[in-house]
């Protein structure tokens, strides 16, 4: 376990890029949104929401992918096994997701308590994603980090193992398969049924359960793929 913590430090030792950039970019997004919405005299009801929060998730996913393509070759060179490296990476991403979930929840409370920073802005209280239960809210914020980061990690591992051609070939196959699937669904008229199934899902399953399951699948896939990867 100490070995895993020592290897986890590889992701946090240069903490500025890992931690500061995603929040700095989100902060800028929040700042500009505040300016824009403050300068609109009377925002129409329901038109005071922004998607600025997505920037945090996207930058975090990019950092996660870079942690594979850059840190993995270094770790392997330092005599770290693929297994230990991946477990350490998983640990960092899970802890980070939970910590960020809590932090976003606190910001959510702050936004709610200040009446949307005084201008009814809904930056953190994104509609539908804004739930009433505190613990559920933390999970709702945390799980998309896991989903996106492990997806990014899986893609990065695929790239490290199979190179540019392998990545693009897999991407092409994925597009082909999903295209054929959509064609099949359209042809059979299954979209209505799918929509019905989605809307019948509990909010918690849709926002937490299913993305967490997909994140776990991507995480296990990345583990399997990295075991045979060479830097």
């Amino acid at each position, binding site marked *: 376990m100490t070995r895993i913590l020592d290897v986890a430090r*590889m992701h946090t030792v240069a903490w500025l890029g890992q931690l500061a950039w995603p929040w700095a970019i989100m902060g800028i997004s929040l700042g500009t949104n505040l300016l824009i919405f403050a300068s609109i005299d009377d925002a129409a009801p329901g038109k005071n929401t922004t998607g600025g929060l997505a920037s945090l998730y996207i930058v975090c996913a990019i950092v996660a992918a870079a942690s594979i393509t*850059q840190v993995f070759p270094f770790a392997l060179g330092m005599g770290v096994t693929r297994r230990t490296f991946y477990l350490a990476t998983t640990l960092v991403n899970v802890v980070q997701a939970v910590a960020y979930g809590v932090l976003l929840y606190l910001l959510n409370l702050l936004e709610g308590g200040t009446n949307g920073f005084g201008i009814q802005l809904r930056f953190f209280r994104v509609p539908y994603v804004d739930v009433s239960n505190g613990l559920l809210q933390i999970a709702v914020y945390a799980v998309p980090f896991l989903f996106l980061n492990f997806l990014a990690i899986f893609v990065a591992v695929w790239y490290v193992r199979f190179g540019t051609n392998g990545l693009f070939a897999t991407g092409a196959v994925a597009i082909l398969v999903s295209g054929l699937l959509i064609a099949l669904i359209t042809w059979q008229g299954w979209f209505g049924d799918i929509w019905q199934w989605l809307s019948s899902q509990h909010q918690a399953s849709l926002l937490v359960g299913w993305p967490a399951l997909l994140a776990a699948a991507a995480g296990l896939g990345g583990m399997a793929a990295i075991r045979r990867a060479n830097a």
Partner: protein
Amino acid sequence: MSVVAAAGLTKRFGDVTALNDVTFTLTENRIYGLLGRNGAGKTTLMQLITGQNSVSVGDLTLFGERPFENERALMRVAFIKESQKYPAAYQVRHVLSLASRLFPNWDEDFAQSLVDEFELPRKRGVRKLSRGMTSALGVTIGLAARAPLTFFDEPYLGLDAVARQLFYDRLLADYAENPRTVVLSTHLIDEVADLIEHVLLLDHGKLLLDAPSEELRGQVMEASGPAEAVDEFATAHRALHREQLGGTARTTLRGSFDNAERMRAKKLGIDLAPVSLQQAVVRLTAEGTNPR
């Protein structure tokens, strides 16, 4: 106990055979020279031993265990290579601080003194270091790690002569105090000839030579003198190389040169002299490449 044992080791990349049926052992507390031309298979061999890559055929053990994905065995190895990649965000001090926790025998004072001697800027980004400074960082890690098995794969690239000498001096001094197994893979054979105790020579993926350097020095000699006498003398040995200028010939020979042989050479009017390790390696490799 053998530190590394390889038997019939073969590694293929597609249809390229990088290592072909290589068998050898590395023993404790010795400095090895892993020599050979570019593409001979040196780096591949080190990658297999350090678990960076998997074995195709054959058996390989590191401290008695298979190295691939073996934490316990790999923790006792430092692999310093010219091609080591570092994350863009890392500064010199980050790399040192990580290495200090990853290598169980790390000597922090030694590391800091090396950083000072190589004049490494602690707060500079690793990717912004010059070629030579990147090498100096690798050398610092390799020495301070005090790993029971340490590989240096072309560690000197870009290092100036003064820094290289500093590396050789520190390596030798620290090796005397903390004996361990060191493998030097290098093209500057003459520079490290005095350090190397045992030579492993690879050529086209095959192990051409596995011998103590002292033994090798006594085995490869250069005989020069009248062409006829040299050729007569050469019949008792393996001629690796021959050149003639007028009536004078010079051949590089491999064999055993005991006192009787030395006397015979003297009687024939032949000058018998040992060749440098680098010359021996060049001649042996050339012979292996172009069998007569």
